[in-house]
């Protein structure tokens, strides 16, 4: 299987994109914004028909697409649901995305879908489960996945290794790449302790096929501040700083702005994407 998780935007294009929301379909088709790619959630396109398919088919004629799964449940002990994997493959076959990704998380138990990206104990047992599931999905869809680091609100006593080691070993065992969500690294470090900068400094940059950036929410629970990864605001300054440092070390990477709740006008997303492009250009220019 080729290393097809590495995508380079067409020449002269800075590889930035935004999550494509139904609210923005008309705007995108009317203005054709200068972005390298759009990302959609695979599950939203697993319906047989609907106007959203017609919009995406038109947008896909002019833009590269990234298909991002949120419901595969790569961490399920019971294995992945092959009916879901089959629908995932149908979306990929239909839209021919340049990037395909999922999460290091689980969301299905006993056939019930819990609509959340739930944390795994980072154990050898979990690593075997996720490795088997990623292999099964990759074999079935005929291409490699990017696996995204989750945002965490709890950790298990039974964990035997740090998240980055788990992800790196998973990628080594399956040939998958990493979708590095820098906001998630920051949110998890704030919630669970640990240094986001230290995590990012040790990410094997060659494995990273895409970066996610998003805003998060601060919530006070029993006097303890918890950061919630709600994708409902601009990217935090601290996350921009981490992104700049990572790009300086790793070079340009396809970078996506996610915004899924309280979706603002398209211009706000484009403005955030512009910031990522500016950082990538500035760091790149400094190196040549």
């Amino acid at each position: 299987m080729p290393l097809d998780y590495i995508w380079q935007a067409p020449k002269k294009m800075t590889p930035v994109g935004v999550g494509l929301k139904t609210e923005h379909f008309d705007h995108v088709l009317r203005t054709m914004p200068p972005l390298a790619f759009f990302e959609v959630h695979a599950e939203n396109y697993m319906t047989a028909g609907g106007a959203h398919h017609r919009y995406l088919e038109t947008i896909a004629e002019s833009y590269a697409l990234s298909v991002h799964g949120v419901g595969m449940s790569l961490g399920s002990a019971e294995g992945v649901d092959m009916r879901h994997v089959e629908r995932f493959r149908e979306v990929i076959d239909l839209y021919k995305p340049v990037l395909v990704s999922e999460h290091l998380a689980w969301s299905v138990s006993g056939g019930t879908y819990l609509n959340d990206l739930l944390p795994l104990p980072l154990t050898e047992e979990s690593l075997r489960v996720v490795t088997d599931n990623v292999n099964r999905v990759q074999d079935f869809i005929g291409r490699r996945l990017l696996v995204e680091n989750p945002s965490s609100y709890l950790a298990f006593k039974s964990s035997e290794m740090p998240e980055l080691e788990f992800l790196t070993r998973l990628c080594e065992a399956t040939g998958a790449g990493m979708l590095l969500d820098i906001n998630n690294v920051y949110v998890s470090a704030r919630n669970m302790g640990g240094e986001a900068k230290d995590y990012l400094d040790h990410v094997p940059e060659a494995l990273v096929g895409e970066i996610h950036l998003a805003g998060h929410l601060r919530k006070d629970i029993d006097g303890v501040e918890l950061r919630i990864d709600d994708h409902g605001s601009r990217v935090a300054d601290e996350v921009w700083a981490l992104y700049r440092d990572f790009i300086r070390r790793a070079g340009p990477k396809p970078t996506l702005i996610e915004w899924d709740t309280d979706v603002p006008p398209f211009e706000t997303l484009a403005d955030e994407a512009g910031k990522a492009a500016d950082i990538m250009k500035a760091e790149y220019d400094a190196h040549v």
Partner: protein
Amino acid sequence: MSELARLQASMKAAMVSGAEPEAHLVASVLPSGLAPARRIQVHQNNYRQTLTSALLALFPVAQVFVGEQFMKGALARYVADDPPSEAVLAHYGAAAADFLQVFPPVAQVPYLPDIVRLEWYVHELQVAVEVDTGDAAPHQRRRLSPNVRLVDSDFPVLNLWMAGTGQIAPEAVNVKSGGQCAAVLLSGGEVRLLALDAAEREFVRSLTSENSAHEPVAARLIEMGVLCRGA
């Protein structure tokens, strides 16, 4: 059952019920600053809130009659009663109307389940592919078109829907004025609502009989796209 499967089953039980998590699940979580039960609650709340919001967005007309708080509460109970079995949320909510039908607080607003049913069918057909019903031979059995869903209601469900969407004044609707049969039809890529008259309603109710006395009604229903011919 493996250690991981046990943990996931326990987490699922806590999320779906919204109740206090089992002791061994709480004991498996690192405390670090915030109590484990409170950390688990972040996921319990997320489950209830995200699914309730997804369903709420499907039933805006029902919400006009009973308000957001009532719908949120009722749908949260539905989410606990009938959790999704797949990750495609566009397919989730088909049984919400049946749940509301027997949900005691809805007894005060007995027409609500049929409005929810109508809205579900509109949504279901909006994400469906229109089936080509073709030109079947006249001798073939008549049947309901696969592009149609019916809401055969004891209430004036279409008038209520029109009031809920602001097309007619609420005071123009008398819920005791008798039932209406609504056909939700996917045609030419658009979903339309049609009212069936008494004869048409009677005919679709007795689709199994091929009574020739009903021919004009049947012909009209085929013309409307509500019926088609074929196996």
